[in-house]
């Protein structure tokens, strides 16, 4: 039952990524060219509603299903890892034109080449795991 719920959430998210064109290389390029408001509108509205909702959750101490705490932990304090990791991610985001969610969506949409990107992403994750202790965090 729980598995089915997550499958439905994922399917909804996949349709959403494809239909909003957030999974399109062209839209990512357009965003970094400041060519249209589309992507900024998507991220901006998601963010405004997200901030409002999280504030409401905290103000009224709303619990997750079964009375457990919501997963709203603070992230570890650091600058280096977020700045360096962020820039590297951004370089890849613009080059391949996808972030991790849309990767899976495009695989389902039948773009065979996206498996090269996914393979690269798995490789990048693996290499990070190997080098983690040697990198500034």
């Amino acid at each position, binding site marked *: 039952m729980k598995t089915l719920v997550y499958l439905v959430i994922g399917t909804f998210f996949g349709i959403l990524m494809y239909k909003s064109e957030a999974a399109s290389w062209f839209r990512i390029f357009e965003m970094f060219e400041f060519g249209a408001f589309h992507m900024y509108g998507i991220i901006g509205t998601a963010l405004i509603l*997200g901030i409002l909702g999280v504030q409401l959750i905290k103000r009224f101490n709303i619990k997750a299903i079964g009375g457990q705490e919501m997963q709203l932990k603070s992230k570890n304090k650091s600058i280096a890892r977020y700045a360096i990791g962020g820039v590297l991610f951004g370089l890849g985001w613009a080059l391949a034109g996808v972030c991790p969610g849309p990767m899976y969506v495009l695989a389902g949409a039948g773009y*065979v*080449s996206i498996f090269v990107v996914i393979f690269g992403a798995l490789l990048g994750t693996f290499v990070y795991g190997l080098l983690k202790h040697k990198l500034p965090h």
Partner: protein
Amino acid sequence: MNWIYDPWPWYIAGPLISFTMFILLYAGKQFGMSSNLRTLCSASGADKAADFFKFNWKKERWNLTVMLGAIIGGFIASQYLSNNTVEVAPDVITKLNVYGIKSAGEAYLPTELFSLEALSSPKNIAILLIGGFLVGFGARYAGGCTSGHAISGLSNLQLPSLIAVIGFFAGGLLMVHFIFPLIFT
């Protein structure tokens, strides 16, 4: 019935993304897509190579299920709900034409990079592979991607997420404005 193929405008898509995040929060989970890459590495035996992959990945099966759903969603949307073209801004099309990408406005992804024929070019394979590598490496280094930092983290007013998102944009601008002219000439 043409409306069914139309793309969703930003004022529909944005709220639905935060809806996705809140549904997952209500389920006691956190919205984050790139952690699946780590889970997949661990499930494939990467735990033998590095401590980073030694964790109980089976507890993350819920997220792999979301990922599987995203694959199904991509199939449904592309097959039944879309004409698989993206109308980008006219001056963006002009710019892409200069880069030799002529499929703008006629395809969902640039055929020059993503078609099967394009896979016969080592340069294109390198672009896709390096792009993917940077996304995977950068997401884990930064501890999250667009969903984990730009949506979840910023919604929770996390300064680390703000630093990461500024990094995402700095990297993207650097790539498009300084590196693309070198790659696509």
